[in-house]
């Protein structure tokens, strides 16, 4: 057997080269030369978390505006130029961050560094393109939230679970805020959040770290910094009792969504919760699949907690989605899910069960490390949200170290009735739906 094909010789440690520039900009380089490709990423430390009532959704709308041209480039020309060199271009906005990326042939690195710096320095924010892009985003909102099966109930879940913190509104924003938002709001937002002190640049792939540093210095080094933007101070207080809400819509099925407040990404308590969520809902051997989905009591029981680096910066929600077959009531399913949680609270997991979910999470982590894009996201987003990028090499150990007691304690501490919010989806006829007023 050749050495390179022996799994025993694989070393998971990822080398990360860190550079800091005079204007506050940070650069992380993750060299990996096995294919002539690279992922270039620019992560800004701003998402819907930094917004306020009246301009909800501005982070995501602004992400769209970054493609609408600079002093040199016309609308969407940025994407066209890079695609024409074989690059894949996109961006995404979350509660905590806004990320732009180009996955490219490695010899096109200078082009994308230059163009990313150009749109940061020279964005052409015209009132006309703002008005047009606002309608594109409203169409996206209709697609993802309004006309989707559980989009609006999910928004209601966050709006009910959070009373003070900005996670209470959706990343895409409320429709009325999208309508009322102005071109001036966008300019103000741009000046506040898009600056070198509030971002991290990542290059992962077949690149020389020093050469990457020189390119970033050349194109980003002269961008002045206004210093870091105002921090988010608001803290969601502990929930003191279950909250429930009903959402009526035309639907073939009854369903419920539940959210439990759980720790933030930087809190090591999140790892026992991850393993707990996996034991409850990941795979066909999981408790909820075996007890509820397989025997036909549910079409779906999804236990969702985003893994690093997508876990939220401030304490987020572990979300349960339970869907029953048409014609069945959802209340019994909800009670059955709470019983499964109670069983872990009183008896904990079996040893073999914990070993299984540890191996599942380990293998899923190894799997994504094949990809420069994901390696870059891990380093960049961990850095942005926790201030440390070396967490990228702790992930496997973080799962491995968790004990049976820690999982049971996590279930007792976080998955309590007092800490949960439940939204029940109640089907109505098209006529009743009409009478309840418009959705937007």
């Amino acid at each position, binding site marked *: 057997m050749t050495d390179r094909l022996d*799994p025993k010789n*694989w070393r998971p440690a990822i080398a990360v080269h860190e550079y800091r520039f005079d204007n506050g900009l940070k650069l992380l380089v993750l060299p990996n030369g096995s294919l002539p490709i690279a992922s270039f990423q620019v992560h800004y430390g701003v998402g819907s978390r930094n917004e306020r009532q009246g301009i909800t959704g501005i982070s995501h709308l602004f992400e769209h505006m970054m493609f609408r041209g600079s002093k040199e480039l016309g609308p969407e020309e940025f994407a066209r130029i890079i695609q024409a060199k074989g690059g894949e271009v996109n961006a995404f906005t979350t509660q905590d961050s806004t990320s732009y990326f180009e996955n490219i042939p490695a010899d096109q690195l200078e082009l994308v560094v230059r163009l990313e710096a150009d749109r940061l320095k020279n964005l052409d924010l015209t009132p006309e393109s703002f008005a047009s892009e606002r309608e594109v985003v409203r169409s996206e909102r209709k*697609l993802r939230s309004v006309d989707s099966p559980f989009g609006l109930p999910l928004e209601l879940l966050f709006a009910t679970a959070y009373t003070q913190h900005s996670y209470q509104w959706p990343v895409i924003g409320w429709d009325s805020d999208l309508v009322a938002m102005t071109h001036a709001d966008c300019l103000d937002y741009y000046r506040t959040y898009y600056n070198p002190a509030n971002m991290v640049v990542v290059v992962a792939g077949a690149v020389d770290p020093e050469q990457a540093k020189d390119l970033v210095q050349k194109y980003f080094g002269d961008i002045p910094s206004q210093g870091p933007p105002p921090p988010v101070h608001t803290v969601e207080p502990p929930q003191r009792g279950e909250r429930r809400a009903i959402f009526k819509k035309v639907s073939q*099925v009854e369903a419920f969504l539940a959210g439990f407040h759980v720790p933030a990404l930087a809190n090591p308590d999140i790892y026992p919760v991850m393993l707990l969520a996996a034991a409850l809902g990941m795979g066909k051997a999981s408790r909820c699949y075996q007890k509820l989905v397989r025997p036909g009591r549910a079409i779906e029981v999804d236990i969702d907690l985003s893994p690093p680096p997508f876990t939220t910066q401030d304490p987020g929600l572990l979300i349960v989605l339970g869907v029953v*077959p048409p014609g069945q009531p959802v209340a019994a399913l909800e009670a059955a899910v709470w019983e499964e949680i109670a069983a872990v609270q009183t008896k904990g997991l079996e040893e073999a069960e914990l070993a299984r979910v540890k191996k599942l999470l380990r293998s899923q982590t190894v799997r994504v490390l094949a990809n420069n894009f994901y390696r870059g996201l891990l380093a960049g987003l961990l850095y942005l949200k926790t201030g440390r990028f070396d967490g990228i090499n702790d992930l496997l150990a973080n799962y491995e170290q968790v004990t049976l007691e820690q999982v049971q304690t996590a279930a007792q501490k976080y998955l309590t009735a007092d800490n949960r919010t439940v939204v029940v989806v109640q089907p109505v006829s098209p006529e009743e*739906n009409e009478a309840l007023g418009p959705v937007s």
Partner: protein
Amino acid sequence: MAPRDDFLPEIYAHTLANGLRLVGLEYSRTPWVNITFMAKRGAEADPAGKGGTADCLAECLTVGTQHRDQLALALAVEGRGAMLQAHGSWDHTTITLEGLAEDFPELMALLAEIVLEPGFPEEEFLLLRERRRAELQHALDDPREVANRTYLPLFFGDSPYGHPVDGSPESLAGLQLEDLRSFFQTQVHPQECSLVIVGMVPQAQALATTQQFWSTWRSPLAPAPAFQDAPQTLAQPGIYLLDRPDLTQSEIRCGHLGPPRSTPDFFALRLVNYILGGGGFSSRLMMRIRAEKGLTYGIRSQFHCRRAPGPFIISTFTPAEHTATMIQEIKNVMTEVKETAGTAAELADAQSYYVGSFPLGLETPGGLAQQIKNIELYNLGLDYLSLYRPRILAVDQSAAQAAAQKYLYPEELVILVVGPAARCRLELEKIGRVTLLPAG
């Protein structure tokens, strides 16, 4: 200048005495292995009125063997942190087991047991059939699903591509375990199957393990002929409206028949489609309809090239009041591209996109396995990857123009609108004959 190709993976292929082909490559970037069993028959071979047979068979194989029940099987897979996925698709059915390369011998033994020693457990079949029926009922809550599922039978009628691959609540109602057994016996034959292995596994080990577990497989019947004819009857061109008063947007599908995968015009057509609607912001549909007019968040076109002639489909959505405008714009853009196939610069950009982005598809075991499956399924040749970029570059403007002329028919579109009729029907009737489809 010829593109560099020192990074191209070396694909190996072996044919066992029973006709089963092993095709794979050695992958050294992460200790992962992807093993896919592919039968070259799929949903097109579903018996008439029993749409979903191949897809149900695929899942049924994963819920019990002659030696293990569903739970023991799930524990064997997930206890190794592996993932088991099974699908019936057009022209093929796959069972994929992927996991850590250290477990390769056990994973290979498991996959062989799943495929060659199926348990066909009656109880599990009935449970999965009822769960799938409920899921398909619930799919009516998602307008995109409704549009996709309505379009195929509308367009293809009774021909083999004329149903969703996972069937409908009605087709599953009549499905029996015997139908799955029969499909397996008549459609899954070693001479028409391939095993694809991409991972940190030396070729010699892959071959030895394949021979160990798969060489004794025999089928008493001759392989069933593959479907490769053009459909006999298609829907009349025009607008078909499915009223959904609860929606805010219209989901739109516009299509006509395209060529099979074996067409010599494949590469020219790929480039023309990039210019029309397959190239994101580099395509005319996206530029005209999203960037200039703000009518939608997304629009794309695709030739679904299969063994038999498949559909060409443009998919989009728009706020209901813009439905007629959208359809008119789509026809205008299609007409432009049919007449000119775009400019020389657009063709050059499309070519450099496919040439430059080519190595991005070779990064992960999953991406590579997809490439090999495609090569096997459509007999593209083991040199397909090395010839891909030269073939893209060999398309000149006249070949692109000829392909656009030959394969685009803006006046023959079968157009499906799923949306609120009260807000779009009058405008639609001004641009063409509208047939109202019965609800449900």
